[in-house]
C-alpha cells in the first residue's frame, strides 16, 4: 500500500502524541485501526461496540497522549489498551468476560499468538471482498452466521451440492490468496 505501512516506533509515537502531530496520528490510525477493530470484536462480539471502542481509544490518545510514554512495540501497547477498554466495557455492562480474554490480559506470550491471528483475519477479510456475491453470501452464512450447509440450501432455495460447491470455491480462493503471503499454521 502506501507510507502507512511503515512501522511507527514507540519513541516516534510518544513524541508525535506530545506534539499533536496530525500526520503521524493519521498514519497510526490507518495502520492499526482495522486490527484493533478485529481484536475488539473478538472480545465484545458486537460490531458497533467494537467500532466505538477503537474510536474512543484514538480520541484518548489524541487528548491525553501528551502525558504518555510508550515503550516496547506500538502494536503491543495498542492491543493491550483496547483489550483493557473491552474488559471495562464488558464489566460495565455486567457481561461475562471470557477466560480467553483474561488469559490474554495476564499472559505476554499469548500476545504474539493473538497478533498473528488478527493479521490472518485481516487478510481473510480483505480476500473475502473480491469473491463473487453469491459465493461470498454463502460463505458468510456458513461461517459468520453459523448456518449448517443444509440450512443454507433451504434458506436460499438451492441444492446442498451447490452450497458445498460454493463453499469450496470460497475456501480454495482464500487458501490460494493467503498461502503465498503467509504460511498457514
Amino acid at each position, binding site marked *: 500500500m502506501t507510507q502507512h505501512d511503515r512501522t511507527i516506533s514507540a519513541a516516534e509515537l510518544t513524541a508525535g502524541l506530545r506534539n499533536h502531530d496530525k500526520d503521524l496520528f493519521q498514519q497510526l490510525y490507518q495502520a492499526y485501526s482495522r486490527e484493533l477493530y478485529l481484536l475488539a470484536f473478538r472480545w465484545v462480539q458486537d460490531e458497533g461496540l467494537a467500532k466505538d471502542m477503537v474510536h474512543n481509544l484514538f480520541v484518548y490518545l489524541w487528548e491525553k497522549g501528551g502525558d504518555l510514554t510508550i515503550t516496547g512495540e506500538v502494536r503491543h501497547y495498542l492491543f493491550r489498551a483496547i483489550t483493557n477498554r473491552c474488559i471495562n466495557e464488558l464489566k460495565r455492562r455486567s457481561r461475562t468476560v471470557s477466560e480467553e480474554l483474561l488469559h490474554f490480559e495476564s499472559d505476554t506470550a499469548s500476545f504474539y499468538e493473538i497478533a498473528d491471528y488478527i493479521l490472518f483475519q485481516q487478510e*481473510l477479510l480483505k480476500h473475502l471482498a473480491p469473491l463473487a456475491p453469491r459465493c461470498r453470501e454463502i460463505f458468510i452464512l456458513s461461517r*459468520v452466521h453459523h448456518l449448517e450447509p443444509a440450512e443454507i440450501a433451504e434458506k436460499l432455495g438451492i441444492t446442498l451440492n451447490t452450497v458445498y460447491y460454493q463453499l469450496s470455491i470460497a475456501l480454495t480462493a482464500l487458501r490460494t490468496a493467503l498461502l503465498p503471503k503467509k504460511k498457514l499454521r
Partner: protein
Amino acid sequence: MKKEEVPGFIIACLSEPDNAAKQQQLQDWLLEDETHPAILEDYRRLWQAAALLPENDFDVATGWDNLQQSTVLRQPPMTVSHRRRWWKVAAVLLPVLLAAAWWRHTQQDREMVTYIAQGNLKDSLQLPDGSKVFLRPGTVLHYRKNFRSRTVELQSGEAFFDVVKNEQQRFTVTAFHAAVEVLGTSFNIKTSTEYTDVAVWDGKVRLSAGNGQPGVLLTPATMGKVDAYTGQVEKLAGTFEYRCGWANNDLSFSNQSLGTVLHTLSSIYQVRLRTADTALLQENITVRFKNITLEEALAVIREMLDLKADHVSSAEYILKKMK
C-alpha cells in the same frame, strides 16, 4: 478423489464432526498421502478463523473522518500570553461567557436525548424521573433532557417500561401513529412501520392512535394494537403477559400455543427452537418461567408435552414426541 473435490470433502467433514462415517473417510484420506494432513490443516485454520469474523469489514476511511471531527479538526483552546492583556480580555469576555453559559444551560434543558440500545440480548436505561426501560438491541428512543413532560418517543424497536408513579404528571410514550398514556405501571411496546402493539404487565394504560380519539383502555395481561395505515386501535383477545418476559425475566404463558412459546423463548435466548412435527406447534400450554435458564424451561416443556429435545448444535434444538 479428484483434486477439485478435496475442498468440498473437507468442508463436509468439518461441518459434521459427529458423523462417524465422514470422520472415518477423513482418516482414510489423511493416510493416503503425506501432504494431506497439511492440506487439512490449511483448510481447518481458514474455516475456524472465518467463524470468528465480523460480518462487515472495518471502514478505515469513514472511521478516520469521524475521528478527525473529534480530534485533529477540533480547535485547540485559546491561549493568551500577556497577563495584562489577559485581564482586559477577561473583563470583556466574562459577561459574554456568563451569558453564553446561561443560554447553553437553558438550551440544554430543551435538548433532546437520543438513546440507541446496544448489547446482544437487551439493554437497560434509567430515565430522568427514575422510570426504567429495558430495550431490545437497536431500539431507538428520544426524550427531552429535562424530562418535565415525561414523554418518550419510541422511534423503532421494542421496549418494556417500568414507570414510576406520579399522580401529578402522566407518563406518555409516543410511537409511529400511536400514543400510550399511563400513571404508574409497567408495559411492553413494540413498534414497526405497520403497527404498534402494547402488552400490559401491571397497572392500566390508555392506547390511542395519537389523533385525539380516545383509543382503548388496557389492563394487565391484555394487549392492544394500532394499525399504522388506518389508525384503527383494537384490543386483542387472549392473554399476553409473556410479551413482557424478555425484559423482566418472568415469562407467563396462559393457554398459549407451543409455537408462541418456542418463538418467544428463541427470541430471548437467541437460539433456534424447532419441532420435528409442525402439528405440535398448535398444542396449547399454560406455564410460567420465572428467572430460569433455557435448559430448565425446555425440561418443563418436555415433561408437559411428553417430548424429547435434541440439541443439534450449540444454538439449535429440535423437539420431538416421545415414541
